[in-house]
């Protein structure tokens, strides 16, 4: 709960005409803005449900995706789910330890002045457009991967994962770093007084306090990585098959949407099935959002 007394318009309303108009306009704007969520869910569900009536459910659980096959179409979406999971898991495996280290460093070992000078770079890193990250994956990271692992092409799951790791890093670092800085000094001082080094204090004592922020930042990064489109398309080679190792190409759920949607006829089975994939992405986003909200509200209860 917010302990600060809030002085909102409600407390000193005088019902002037300008105020009434203003109140009405802002209420309408808030309702309209919130209503777009319902609209999005509705307009994703409509074609997706049609897809479910056009294609038997079992057909989706196949490993072949071939919307325009000679002898009928196959609608296996498993390759895309596998592609999305590979890239996202690789991204988290790389970015979680890195951002944890960076957050400990910035919150425990840096002076405030230096931190405020370098913090802007994390905001900038978060602001690099995804198409430019994709361009980097294509022209810098992929050639490096090809060289190191002796591959003919570096456009692999690993390439996508590394690119995503860089993209989710700034948010994780800032969430974790904020959480570390919000811990009351006394706990750190206590640990140091007991003879712990600064590093031991951070890992052994302070980590307990940032655990909820840690989990929710991992969740948010998962959501962002699985929903990222342009950077991944440019990085992973886009072959609709289940990758058996990080050094194979593949295609993600977001990738198949961006690549195939412009070529489909509105209302066709292909169009509807692509919306079904979009609905799965939306549901993942809703779930991630719900879970991270649950964690933050639990923390609030604990503090009270």
């Amino acid at each position, binding site marked *: 709960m917010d302990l600060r007394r*809030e002085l*909102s*318009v*409600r407390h*000193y309303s005088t019902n*002037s005409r*300008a*105020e009434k108009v*203003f*109140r009405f306009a*802002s209420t309408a*704007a*808030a309702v309209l*803005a*919130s209503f*777009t*969520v319902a609209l*999005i869910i509705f*307009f*994703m569900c409509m074609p997706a449900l049609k897809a479910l009536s056009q294609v038997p459910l079992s057909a989706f659980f196949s490993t072949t995706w071939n919307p325009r096959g000679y002898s009928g179409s196959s609608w296996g979406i498993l390759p895309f789910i596998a592609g999305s999971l590979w890239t996202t898991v690789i991204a988290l495996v790389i970015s979680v330890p890195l951002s944890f*280290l*960076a957050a400990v460093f910035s919150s425990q070992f*840096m002076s405030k002045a230096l931190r*405020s000078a370098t913090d*802007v770079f994390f*905001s*900038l*890193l978060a*602001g*690099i*457009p995804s*198409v*430019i990250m*994709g*361009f980097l994956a*294509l*022209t810098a990271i992929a050639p490096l991967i090809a060289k190191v692992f002796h591959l003919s092409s570096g456009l692999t799951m690993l390439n996508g994962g590394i690119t995503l790791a*860089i993209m989710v*890093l700034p948010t994780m670092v800032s969430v974790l770093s904020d959480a570390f800085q919000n811990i009351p000094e006394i706990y750190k001082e206590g640990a140091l007084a007991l003879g712990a*080094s600064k*590093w*031991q204090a951070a890992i052994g004592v302070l980590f307990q306090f940032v655990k909820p922020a840690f989990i929710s930042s991992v969740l*948010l990064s998962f*959501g962002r990585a*699985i929903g990222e*489109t*342009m950077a991944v*398309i*440019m990085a992973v080679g886009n072959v609709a098959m289940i990758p058996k190792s990080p050094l194979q190409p593949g295609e993600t759920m*977001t990738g198949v*949407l961006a690549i195939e*949607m*412009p070529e489909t006829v509105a209302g066709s089975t292909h169009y509807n099935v692509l919306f079904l994939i*979009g609905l799965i*992405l*939306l549901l993942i*986003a*809703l779930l991630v*959002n719900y879970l991270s*909200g649950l964690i933050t509200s639990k923390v609030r209860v604990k503090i009270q």
Partner: protein
Amino acid sequence: MRKTSDSAWVVVSGVAYFSAVIFVIWVAVHLYILSEGKLSLEFLFTNPTNGMTAGGVFAPLFGSLYLALWVLVISTPLGVLAGVYFAEFAPDNTLTRLLRSSIRTLSGVPAIVFGLFGLAFFVRLMNLRLSLLSSALTLSVMNLPVIITTTEEALRLVPNAQKEAAIALGANAWEVWRDVSFKYASGGMLSGLFLALSRALGETAPILLTGVVFYQPTVTLDPTKSFMALPYHIFILATQHSKFAEVLPIAAASGFILLIIVLLIRILAYIYSRRIQRWL
């Protein structure tokens, strides 16, 4: 012994931290080197020619800036008003909680899902076709949560003493908001608008399905026409062009321009958001 292991960890974590700093600089340098001297004023003001293997980025650059303008025109009033509602009027009840969680949900939806929604709703149902207006509306929906949350945050940080002083002087609610709250919060609100602007310029997935095309060199102010945009231009050159080696410098130069524009706007957003924090 403990001291050595500690300093080793400090070095490792320091490297992790500063690699992010260095990476941002490296991106700009990498793009600049790959552009092989293509960057010039002329590059900004000429259209792509010869099957996009020569010329500049005028039409895509113009398209992106014009799109961003429309996004701001649509999303600013709606987002700021909604933010004002949550900060000033919203009662603490179930409905408010529902509205709030809807806005939070909206901020987590992937960009490509907004693209699909724009295609189904603005392009098809509202029959706006593949146009700049469809893209601008789609991006506006996507930007709403950013503007709403920054507006609300900024308004919540207005010191009560300031409002109380104005009330004591006989100002009514509208006057308090206009002369005190808005002035105090305008910096924070601006930071949200800059963030929204940088997203409107840099996002590709939402416009990909709602109106951007790869070649449309005649520049028009008509928002019902399809358009070229800088991020999509880079994407097409880097992935769909048959003469990759030939267009690579152009793609890199376009990328450099996009990066500089977006990062400059981000720096402005950062400066203004710091201004909010200073009040705390």
